[in-house]
């Protein structure tokens, strides 16, 4: 039996396609955890990155926060939060958000810093308010890089959200953890395949989003 055979028999088994342990349920759970974590991380990191990048201050502090965030081990944080907070989604969200904040924060900051200063000065000269300068001049130019930060965060979340299964939650990690203890390779390989496919779909989604959202002028020059 090789990996492809395992995947084939996993997806070929009709029992894996319905019920509380079926692929649709687990996939939806996984996407829900991932989206919630990404949204939370974006709500925290995007404003901070945009504002610090706009004013060009606090870059060193951000780098320190990002390094500390990256250094915190996701799995350890999960177990610790579970011990402290008990069952529920919060102990899972905390490590996922901690994981996703650094890439969004740092890339957003760098994206804002890399914006050509001359149109920004011109916009100020025309009497635009700081908020309009930020959202109408800087953000459109910085958007491709900002999106790449969000993409990195999303991919890491999707892969890491599997650890939720260790504290008895659902998601695709269920197949991997159950497969470990049941010695069922079909489940492990099937679960891993689904996670990888979800990551690839996310990449495609971000690619499409950047085609749609980035103005043609910026795309041409990038």
């Amino acid at each position, binding site marked *: 039996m090789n990996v492809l055979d395992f995947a084939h028999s996993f997806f070929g088994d009709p029992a894996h396609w319905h019920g509380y342990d079926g692929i649709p349920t687990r996939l939806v759970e996984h996407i829900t955890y991932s989206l919630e974590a990404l949204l939370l991380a974006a709500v925290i990191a995007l404003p901070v990155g945009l504002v610090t990048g706009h004013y060009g201050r606090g870059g060193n502090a951000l780098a320190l926060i990002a390094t500390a965030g990256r250094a915190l081990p996701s799995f350890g944080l999960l177990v610790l939060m579970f011990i402290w907070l*008990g*069952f529920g989604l919060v102990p899972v969200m905390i490590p996922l958000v901690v994981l996703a904040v650094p890439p969004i924060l740092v890339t957003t900051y760098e994206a804002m810093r890399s914006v050509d200063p001359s149109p920004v000065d011109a916009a100020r000269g025309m009497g635009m308010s700081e908020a309009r300068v930020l959202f109408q001049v800087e953000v459109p130019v910085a958007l491709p890089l900002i999106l790449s930060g969000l993409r990195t965060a999303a991919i890491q979340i999707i892969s890491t959200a599997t650890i939720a299964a260790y504290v*008895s939650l659902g998601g695709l990690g*269920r197949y991997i953890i159950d497969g470990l*203890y*049941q*010695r*069922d390779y079909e489940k492990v390989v099937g679960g891993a395949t689904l996670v990888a496919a979800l990551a690839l779909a996310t990449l495609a989604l971000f690619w499409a989003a950047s085609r749609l959202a980035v103005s043609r002028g910026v795309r041409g020059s990038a």
Partner: protein
Amino acid sequence: MRRNRGAAVVALAAATALLAGCSSHSGKSDPLAGGKASGGEVVVGSNNFPESTLLADIYGEALKAKGIKVTYKPNIGSRETTYGLLKNGSLSVLPEYNGALLAYLDPKATPKSAEETTAAIKTKLDAKLTLLEPSAAEDKDSLAVNAATARKYHLTGQSTIADLKGVAKDLVIGGSPEFQTRQQGLAGLKSVYGLDFKSFKALDAGGTLTQTALKKNDVQVADIFSTDPTIAKEKFVPLKDPENLFGFQNVQPLVVKSAVSPKGVDALNAVSAKLDTATLLDLDAQVQNQRKDPLDVAKAWLKSAGLG
């Protein structure tokens, strides 16, 4: 400038050498490496729940007391994994539970006694392995409901698993991930008692997750070890098992024949002869309630039993 770079290169090279040195050193002495146990060294393993680790310490220390070299490989995982590691020789001794082992080897077996269980295992066991003498100490998987569920459905200490028949469809059951597929698990509950639960929640092997989930009513029924000190503490109600699905569960060491000398076998059998359920309950409570280190508990008991 040049010197700086030279220094950095030297530092990097030194670090590399150090790391490589560390690894080759451990390559020789690391008992956890995948290879076979070698040179008369006995590798005692345990599954991923506290009682298993405690029992591994007890059997391991008894071997050490006879001058046998022992290394431990604790907290490995489920039987599905450890059985394979015994077969390929990465482990040499594992404290087992005879009924659960039989259910793993032969899901259809329905032994009527502990002797039958042992005899049935011996016909199914891999040729390289053997089961030593059983101890009197029993620790069964048991299906338990929490206090609220017991009140709601009028379940008492006299109730049986069969009494869940009408209500199982409203109950969430919890157990280790492997419980989902085992005969002594969801499969057997369906085939022997005809129970179909609302859903299954994967927790751990009777550990903290299971205890907490049952206490907080995240699950209403759970697989709890009959020696678990939390049963009394949290007023969980274990249900009787008239069909003997969870069978006879005596603690019994499973060993690789070639890895344990006759002297070692005698030492292990001497431990099993002294171990009974009351003792096991007491030792479990020392580890789980009084927070003592399992190795200390094991050594102290061996000494008091004249085996240490």
